[in-house]
């Protein structure tokens, strides 16, 4: 039984990171209806900035964590300003293509740095021995990661529920024309959505980097795994992203815990989310919490 609970615990750890990664993705989709395929690259960038500030500049890790969130905030904002602002009003297909192009560009830029080819790991700043309780173990890094994730998710949901900027973002996602008429600057909201997405991506990247080490392949794979997560949760629902993130984490852990090694299967955790995605697209494309759009094919 402790094996089961171990899987549950690590599923929640992985899942909460998925939730944090998916949060930024949903933010962008919710406000501007853009599928951001470059999200994994932004996550990786955030993680690398944190590492650079911590190790090469020598800033304490918690401060560099916040700093990197701020830097990525402005980076993502400028990406929106430079590339996506001039595409407002273009068909959605070219906007998605631009994010594909961006994904490729950031890939190239990261391969230019040492991060593209080598693996790094954050210096340990927490006790190395895991907490073991009733045969279920969780390391301090994982625990701090989960705590940070939930704090951030809390902050974000407060931000959207209560703050003026958050409310204006929700207004834009609801009806662009109406929000323009009451004085909300729609382009500014788009910029802010990208910026907040960058911020949450940097946080996700840093947490992942602390838990798994900095490997570009693993980090940018998080940008692709968010697709099954957001579809399961419903593309435009923040709550859905969180719930679906944790469900997806649990599914992956159970798959690698119970399926691998039996019936000649292994590595099922990597493929199961995508199979679920395909099935969901066929039968329940709006996910658990997404709004049902009336428009159909």
């Amino acid at each position, binding site marked *: 039984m402790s094996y089961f609970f171990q899987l549950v615990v690590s599923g929640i750890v992985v899942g909460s990171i998925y939730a944090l990664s998916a949060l930024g993705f949903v933010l962008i989709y919710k406000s501007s209806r853009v599928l951001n395929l470059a999200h994994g690259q932004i996550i990786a960038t955030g993680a690398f900035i944190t590492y650079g500030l911590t190790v090469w500049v020598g800033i304490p890790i918690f401060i560099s964590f916040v700093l990197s969130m701020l830097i990525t905030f402005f980076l993502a904002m400028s990406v929106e300003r430079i590339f996506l602002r001039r595409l407002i009003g273009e068909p959605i297909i070219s906007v998605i293509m631009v994010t594909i192009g961006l994904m490729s560009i950031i890939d190239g830029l990261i391969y230019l740095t040492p991060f593209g080819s080598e693996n790094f790991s954050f210096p340990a700043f927490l006790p190395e021995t895991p907490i073991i309780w009733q045969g279920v173990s969780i390391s301090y890094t994982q625990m701090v990661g989960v705590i940070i994730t939930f704090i951030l998710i809390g902050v974000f949901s407060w931000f959207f529920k209560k703050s003026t900027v958050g409310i204006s973002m929700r207004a834009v996602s609801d009806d662009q024309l109406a929000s323009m008429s009451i004085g909300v600057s729609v382009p500014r909201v788009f910029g802010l959505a990208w910026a907040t997405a960058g911020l949450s991506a940097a946080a996700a990247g840093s947490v992942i980097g602390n838990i798994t080490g900095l490997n570009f392949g693993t980090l940018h794979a998080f940008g692709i795994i968010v697709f099954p997560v957001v579809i399961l949760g419903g593309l435009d629902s923040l709550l859905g992203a969180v719930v679906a993130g944790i469900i997806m984490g649990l599914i992956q852990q159970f798959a690698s815990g119970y399926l691998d090694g039996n019936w000649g299967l292994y590595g099922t955790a990597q493929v199961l989310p*995508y199979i679920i995605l395909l099935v969901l697209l066929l039968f329940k494309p709006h996910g658990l919490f997404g709004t049902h759009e009336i428009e159909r094919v």
Partner: protein
Amino acid sequence: MSANRWLATGNYFTTYQEEQRIFATSLDRLFCACFLAMLFLWPFFYEFDSKYMLVIDNILVAVIAILGLNLVTGFAGLISVGHAAFVGVGAYTVACVARAIGDQHVVITHGWPLMILFSGFMGTIFGLIVGLPALRLKHLYLVMATLSFQMIFEWTIGFMDFFNQGQTIYVGRVYWFTGEVGRKEHYLFWYYALLVVVVVCGFAVRNLLRTRHGRCLVAVRDNDRAADAMGMHPGFTKVYAFGLAGFFAGIAGAMHAYLYRGVGMESFTLHESIQYLAMNIVGGLGALTGSFFGPAAIKILDLQVERLAEWAAAFLPSTMNLATALRPLSFGLVIVLFLMFEPRGIANWWRILRSYVKLWPFRY
């Protein structure tokens, strides 16, 4: 009025039949025939290094794949981020047969035209399956469906022993009427084989777009509800577009497998899918000529990038692999710049050039 079909300085169509002709003027037809003849004849007069011959062959393989991608992304307006996986389905069909009955079996070496067709059909089947969500969904979601197909494909190849875990699976040399195609004439032989397939596929697509089955793709892209009102089924049309794309991709994949005499995973990754998209965008989405310009432009760019990386490697520490960095960077930049400044791609330049020549010496 029967217009002069040789020296028309504008379009004077009076019937839809005229408007739907493959070549607008006889001059176009003549140029196209001359160009094709040149493509077939130049190897008799000039011999390229086999390295460059491979690049030319690669361009032709990509042209076949892009003809398919252009049908689904350009004409039907559904983004496919998994086109390399469809090409991979074709290549791995050949590889599967090679693996099951041996890579020197007569089916592989003598029956290669049938193998190529068969791969096309396998591609169609997978295209139809992946396109199924299109029955219900808009293209936003289809991006995800194709992406997940790409991931599932990569996983399947990478984790199964039957596929050699993504390592190279060999495919034997083929036979022609003159006997086995040896090492020396390998690239030249496949140049001709590919050229024939490209010409056939090109005319097939051109003709398809003149019939109702091709025009319904464009109709569904432009306004699916209007298309629905006119009696087309938008969902089925989209699934059918994916099937068509899968067919061309499958053929391209099989040709790729024969050309390289082996199938390995590295040619069918997500990066390759993005490269195909880049080719399509650079060439021009929804323009048939774009399917030819795009692959040529991107492959030549790729060659130049490689050359630059080789040249720069002398000045850089040896641990740094500049080519892996510059490749995605250049493709990304090309995609973004073309989308921002010339969304209609090189095909648009070609159109402008043609209308300039056609109207010469008059101007607008």
